[in-house]
């Protein structure tokens, strides 16, 4: 239990540092950045308490907000993603989730992609809506959501696959 907790803390810190030091500075085509820190919410153990997940997600989003000076934008979208996670899991893994036997180390790639992609889309739509915060910017919101989601999904899946291989 303690080693698992330690692993989570290290994962949390590494993801925040990677996000702040590397992924916020990519600015592909001027404005597209992947927000890979949400991997933490995707990979949070399913059996653990949902209340803890909500609190940790809030803390994660707040940390990113502090670095980016963005108010509470990331915190709000992270909490939303954490709250909607069971629905996503049911949608992507179906029976496997019902039996509480989803393990993120060895998954079918198709279900993993749909899980990460839909989750990212929800998170990014909330993120950019709050960031732009203006109905007249709806096209900008949709454009940013689409492009950033594609980028985040690709990078996130690559990272998940890369690190789950090592753990086996």
């Amino acid at each position: 239990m303690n080693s698992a907790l330690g692993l989570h803390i290290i994962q949390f810190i590494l993801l925040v540092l990677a996000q702040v030091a590397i992924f916020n500075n990519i600015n592909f085509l001027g404005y597209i950045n992947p927000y890979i820190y949400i991997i933490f919410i995707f990979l949070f153990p399913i059996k653990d308490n949902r209340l803890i997940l909500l609190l940790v997600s809030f803390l994660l989003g707040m940390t990113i907000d502090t670095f980016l000076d963005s108010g509470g934008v990331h915190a709000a979208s992270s909490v939303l993603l954490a709250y909607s996670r069971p629905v996503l899991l049911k949608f992507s893994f179906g029976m496997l989730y019902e039996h509480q036997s989803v393990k993120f180390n060895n998954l079918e790639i198709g279900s993993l992609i749909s899980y990460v992609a839909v989750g990212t889309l929800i998170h990014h739509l909330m993120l950019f809506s709050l960031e732009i915060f203006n109905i007249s910017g709806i096209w900008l919101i949709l454009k940013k959501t689409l492009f950033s989601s594609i980028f985040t999904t690709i990078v996130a899946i690559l990272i998940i696959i890369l690190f789950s291989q090592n753990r086996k």
Partner: protein
Amino acid sequence: MQQIINFVIRNKTFLLFLLLFGISLALTIQSHSYHRSRFINSANAVTGGIYGTINSVDQYFSLKQENELLIEENKRLKEVLFNSKESLATGTKDSILDGKKYRITSAEVYKNSYSLTNNYLTLNKGNKDGIKRDFGVIHPKGIIGIIDNTSNGYSTVLSILNKKSRINAKLKATNHFGSLTWNGASPDIMQLIDVSKFAPVKVGDTIVSGGQSAIFPKGIQIGTVENFTTDVGGDTYTIDVRLFNDMTNIGKVYIIENTDREEIKQLEDKLNE
């Protein structure tokens, strides 16, 4: 009572979600309103320290560009110096020491962003260097922004690439002024709005700071006129300004303190009373 407790226990996840989501929404809305400073900002010891570590590695990659920028600025300053009517020798010492209106501090940019709609920078100077809120921040090639929050060792800057930023600017040739704003589209182009229709605007004209705000001195170069349109009402021009400086690549900046600012502010407050 029993039922209320049962309800809370049954819906505890949803209620916690509502609580946390509400807090974040409140913080977001607060950050979108200009006149209040934010609780949560990157001018603190932890984030400042981490950005400092990142920057100490990162700065080596731009040393050459920084050097070229400095040489260019030195060249320009020397030209001004050698071509000025009074030579150095006749300039009296007293006027330099006592009549100093602007105090300048150099600072290093620890964090810069330009891809969001509300961008902020983090600098490595703070309260202990005498930096306060509403000081101006400039770059050899143009304006960067205005100091927003300060901590002991760090400060955040409201970038000109921020929808909340409004900076007084004018045409270089005449005194027709307007407000420099940003529509969030491109980090090279900004909008100068509310320029009088009587102003003789031409594509390629230079835009400089207006000096009416007590934050920036008059005449700092900002950019050139890219194109201009008449406003919906038909009384004012909206001018697209192409910036001289590349906001995506900033290493060192200068913080400007107007020593007369308090006096000007007091005077203006008297008007409002």
